[in-house]
């Protein structure tokens, strides 16, 4: 029995929340050695109109016969029609996904999760700090803020990668750095090409270039590897950005996306329903949220 795709704010009671709808891969190209960019369009036009999402949300993606897994959405709802994903080949499902060609179909359902609190962020200064694959979800927020530039205050985008070759969306972000409506600073841990024109060093090194910030009026969105979280959090707290305005998106194993399968549970929260965007305060008082290292020894 055919059921309708889900709309975030207009949920029908009787639909099957596990029902994937078919989307066609319209573009697919490598961003780095092991990360591919996927662009998909719904086979059924109605599904396009209904896939109404917020930056920071995720979808459950299915590959026929292989299974299903959560993926961050990398596109912005301000450019409707296509869904974009930035996917690293890390396991069995993504291995099979990477074997699919343009024009083949995948199953999508969603969007799920809380996403970034856009309403609260409007009118505030925005800092987006991405490391490695963390850009997969932050690109959605960045593009959204750029598309609605007048609704937000100052915008800072900091992006770190290990090497220039591993910097995702490098060309796209290079074009942002000369714009005067945001401060976009790119850095690599190590330039192994000799051609890199931007910064070299870790993301936290970029903080010194920021100048004074209006901390109380700032929302910071951070996503990257655990070690980056640790140091970036320290810096943000030191700058007096309120802990409940520091946003992080977390990853967990998920089988349903709708709070049923249990895998992403942390105490009484489900990453899929109450997250994947959490504040630094959530992380501090929910011990298991991000694991050892990040929230250790933080008392003040």
């Amino acid at each position, binding site marked *: 029995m055919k059921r309708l795709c889900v709309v975030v704010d207009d949920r029908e009671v009787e639909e099957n929340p596990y029902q994937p709808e078919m989307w066609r891969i319209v573009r697919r190209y490598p961003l780095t050695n092991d990360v591919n960019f996927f662009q998909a369009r719904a086979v059924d036009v109605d599904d396009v109109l209904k896939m109404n999402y917020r930056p920071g949300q995720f979808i459950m993606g299915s590959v026929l016969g292989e299974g299903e897994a959560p993926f961050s959405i990398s596109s912005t709802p301000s450019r409707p029609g296509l869904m974009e994903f930035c996917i690293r080949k890390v396991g069995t499902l993504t291995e*099979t996904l990477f074997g699919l060609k343009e024009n083949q179909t995948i199953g999508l359902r969603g969007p799920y999760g809380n996403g970034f609190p856009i309403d609260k962020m409007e009118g505030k200064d925005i800092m987006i700090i991405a490391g490695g694959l963390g850009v997969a979800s932050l690109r959605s927020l960045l593009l959204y803020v750029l598309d609605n530039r007048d609704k937000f205050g100052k915008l800072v985008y900091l992006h770190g990668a290990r090497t220039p070759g591993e910097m995702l969306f490098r060309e796209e972000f290079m074009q942002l750095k000369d714009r005067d409506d945001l401060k976009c600073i790119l850095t690599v841990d190590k330039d192994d090409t000799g051609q890199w024109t931007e910064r070299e060093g870790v993301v936290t090194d970029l903080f010194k270039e920021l100048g004074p910030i209006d901390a109380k009026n700032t929302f910071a969105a951070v996503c990257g590897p655990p070690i980056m979280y640790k140091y970036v959090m320290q810096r943000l707290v030191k700058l007096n950005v309120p802990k409940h305005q520091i946003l992080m998106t977390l990853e967990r194993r998920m089988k349903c996306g709708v709070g049923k399968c249990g895998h992403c549970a942390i105490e009484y929260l489900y990453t899929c329903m109450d997250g994947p965007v959490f504040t630094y305060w959530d992380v501090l008082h929910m011990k298991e949220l991000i694991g050892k290292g990040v929230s250790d020894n933080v008392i003040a």
Partner: protein
Amino acid sequence: MSSPKIGFYGFTGCAGDQLMVLNCEDQLVDLFGATDIRSFAMAKSDNDDGELDVAFVEGSISTEGQLEHLKDIRKRSKVVVAIGTCACWGGPQAMKLEEGGYEERYKKVYGNAKIEVSKAFEAQPVDAFVKVEMKIPGCPIDKTEFLSAVTKVVAGRHPYFYSFPVCTECKWKENPCILTEGKFCAGPLTKAGCGAVCPSHNIPCVGCWGPTDDLNVSAEYNLLEEKGYDADEIIKKIKKFGGAVVAKMVKELSAKKNTKEGGK
């Protein structure tokens, strides 16, 4: 797309897994139809030794000749699948792993008789010698599990195997836990997949599916000791199908226990 070339090979074991493949009566025609079976000595006579997409290997490796053959299979196969507990873990013939004394045991059986076939050694699982992409355990393998895996490999997908112990399937079958009744059950150490056949007939699990992914050998050992079983019996029984993985853990456990007792 041409159908994948596959082959079946048997080494030290009872050939029960190949028999189980042939026993997939209802699906056998489909299996032969969906694949190009190049080699299956137990089922057909015109076998060739060419390139393969998937080689299914049964039995443990216990002679130089077998090892040579295995390496050749590996060389001409894209994917090697170990089928059955002997190929996956070593089987009962590997129960003395990590104990040494192979030469004495060999002598005990064969005396000084001159054996003309290839030189034998302590039996070991296939992955002790070559890379194995997938293990389908079982003694013999379970039809459903085997077909589920094969259909996925043929479709270019990744098979899924239960990672948990047979106790979980045993609960699905609504059996009371026989360990709590004081019986010797190897369920907690044993990979699921059989559907908890034995405990469902009130027969304790002997562990024939081989070790599960997340073993707590010392907890099982302590529990059985508490229930009154003696150390030798416990070790012998849990090593029976535990193969290389359990043998190593038992060795560590014994070393730990000896140091503890030595320290008293």
